[in-house]
């Protein structure tokens, strides 16, 4: 159990692995980790026991590994920016990139000040190593607590806080930026910044706290290894509420309500973004193992399988339903597969990953078309990819979870692997809870911004484009002649 990311355990594990002197690790495992199979003990023994030097080795490698994974997750910001800019019009391209730039910039700071403390409440109480974060501690010199003396005293633990924060902050920025594309082309910049702050400071952290922070969901045995629900559904449902409250772009729907095509200005940029997201996901999923071990490559392979299956399925579905293989739909399909596999990547088999990804790829095409029919304008399909396929990912874990997860944990198996409906039920419960909480809070948030008149630009500004209206000049210079009739 100690290597999974289900519930509070991973953090206790961390505590165990670092705070306890390495030589006490074995007892620590037995004491804190609950019933564990023999292999856990031996593994733990192999990894942490014996020479202090040996223990430090693994600590260093673990920290460096998560650091590298976090950098990959941050790369996803560039990917989101390109996907969103590419699938919207040229007159809003700079605005989209600016929103993504601010998601990560504001996000890292706000998550440090507020979000992180909310997401992981219990675990860090009274840990001075953590005092460096949070409103109060922010004004201390938190490095005091990670000076070599402190390290020695604390058995190296505090140094893991920064890397864990670094990794988690990248996730928070990801959740926030999902919304940017759904509300593209008509949102006031100031309103978006306020939304972004609220999501990284409160909405996302609360949801994360339920599970990774050791909250009620984790007590149910809910499984969300890398965040199909916690990260993607949160972003996806916030995106839905944003698109809903803000309303469609001018001209998106004909008077009879039928959707009009508003082609993105650069599919090549969008697919470049998909490639960067694909790469970033190899930090997102494998890094969620929270330590450098031999499960990492398996997680990577399953991630690649789901991504590939998603892209192929979306291509095939669009081909079948629209007569031609749609490029941006295939891109959405790869993302859908990646989103869906996050939850169960530590629990499912190879064939499970392929099926989960393929179904996600088909779902996303249907969802994008369906959403449009309901009169909601989500230019990049953010809700379909992250919200719908995020939920599918949770359900899929309830169906495909095996009895022998990659990480040696002893989770309940899914319906198709003889585990009955209990895990499935928990997954659905969790999905509904996340959807409901985010829908309500994000709904209130966007409605409040709307009431305050900071949510949507004027019709004139929208026609002129947000680059000029909100930022003073077009994203593409006068030498990249941009046509009028759009």
């Amino acid at each position, binding site marked *: 159990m100690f290597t999974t990311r289900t519930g509070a355990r991973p953090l206790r594990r961390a505590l165990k692995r670092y705070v306890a002197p390495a030589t006490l690790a074995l007892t620590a495992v037995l004491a804190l980790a609950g019933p564990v199979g023999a292999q856990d003990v031996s593994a733990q023994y192999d990894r942490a026991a014996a020479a202090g030097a040996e223990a430090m080795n693994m600590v260093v490698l673990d920290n460096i590994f998560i650091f590298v994974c976090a950098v990959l997750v941050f790369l996803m910001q560039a990917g989101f920016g390109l996907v969103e800019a590419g699938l919207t019009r040229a007159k809003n391209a700079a605005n989209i990139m600016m929103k993504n730039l601010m998601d990560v910039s504001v996000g890292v700071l706000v998550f440090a000040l507020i979000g992180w403390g909310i997401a992981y409440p219990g675990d860090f109480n009274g840990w001075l190593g953590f005092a460096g974060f949070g409103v109060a501690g922010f004004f201390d010199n938190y490095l005091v607590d990670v000076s070599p003396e402190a390290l020695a005293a604390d058995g190296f633990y505090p140094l893991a806080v920064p890397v864990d924060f670094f990794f988690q902050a990248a996730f928070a920025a990801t959740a926030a930026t999902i919304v940017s594309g759904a509300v593209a082309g008509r949102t006031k910049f100031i309103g978006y910044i306020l939304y972004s702050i609220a999501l990284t400071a409160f909405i996302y952290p609360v949801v994360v706290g339920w599970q990774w922070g050791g909250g009620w969901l984790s007590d149910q045995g809910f499984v969300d290894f890398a965040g199909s629900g916690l990260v993607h559904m949160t972003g996806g449902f916030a995106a839905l509420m944003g698109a809903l409250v803000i309303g469609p772009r001018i001209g998106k729907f004909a008077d009879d309500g039928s959707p009009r095509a508003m082609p993105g200005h650069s599919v090549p940029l969008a697919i470049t973004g998909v490639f960067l997201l694909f790469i970033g996901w190899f930090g997102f999923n494998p890094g969620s193992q929270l330590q450098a071990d031999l499960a990492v490559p398996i997680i990577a392979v399953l991630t690649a399988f789901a991504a590939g299956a998603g892209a192929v399925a979306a291509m095939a579905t669009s081909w079948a339903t629209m007569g031609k293989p749609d490029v941006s739909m295939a891109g959405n399909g790869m993302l859908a597969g990646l989103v869906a596999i996050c939850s169960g990547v530590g629990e499912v088999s190879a064939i499970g990953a392929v099926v989960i990804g393929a179904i996600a790829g088909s779902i996303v095409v249907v969802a994008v078309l369906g959403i449009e029919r309901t009169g909601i304008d989500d230019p990049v399909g953010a809700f379909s990819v992250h919200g719908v396929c995020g939920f599918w990912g949770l359900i899929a874990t309830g169906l495909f979870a095996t009895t022998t997860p990659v990480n040696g944990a002893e989770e309940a198996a899914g319906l198709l692997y003889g585990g009955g409906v209990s895990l499935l039920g928990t997954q659905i419960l969790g999905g509904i809870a996340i959807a409901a909480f985010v829908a309500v809070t994000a709904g209130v948030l966007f409605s409040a911004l709307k009431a305050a008149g900071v949510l949507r630009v004027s019709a004139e500004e929208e*026609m002129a484009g947000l680059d000029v209206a909100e930022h*003073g000049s077009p994203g593409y210079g006068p030498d990249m*002649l941009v*046509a*009028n*009739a759009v």
Partner: protein
Amino acid sequence: MQLITAIIKPHMLDEVKAALKSIDVSGMTVTEAKGFGRQGGHTETYRGAEYKVDFVPKMKIELVVDDSQVVLATDAIVKAAQTGKIGDGKIWVTPVDRIIRIRTGELGVDAV
């Protein structure tokens, strides 16, 4: 035959096209243009430097019609392209001595 040239606001193109189709105008040629006039332009800022954008986006529509159709066509354009706001554009009409359909070499009325 006469040539009608209309300068309109870009987003009115569809309406104008529809209006002309409804009076059986068989074809037209459209060009992206930029206009200068009473409407004036606006100021943009790039990295702190302000600059004036005098020319505003317009669409230019050209259609050759039979003399009998001129008034009908211009009226249709005016009706369709009119927003009442400054910058709606102009229409001018010039005489055409000859018109040829390249595909067939037909001349005059048969060519349009």
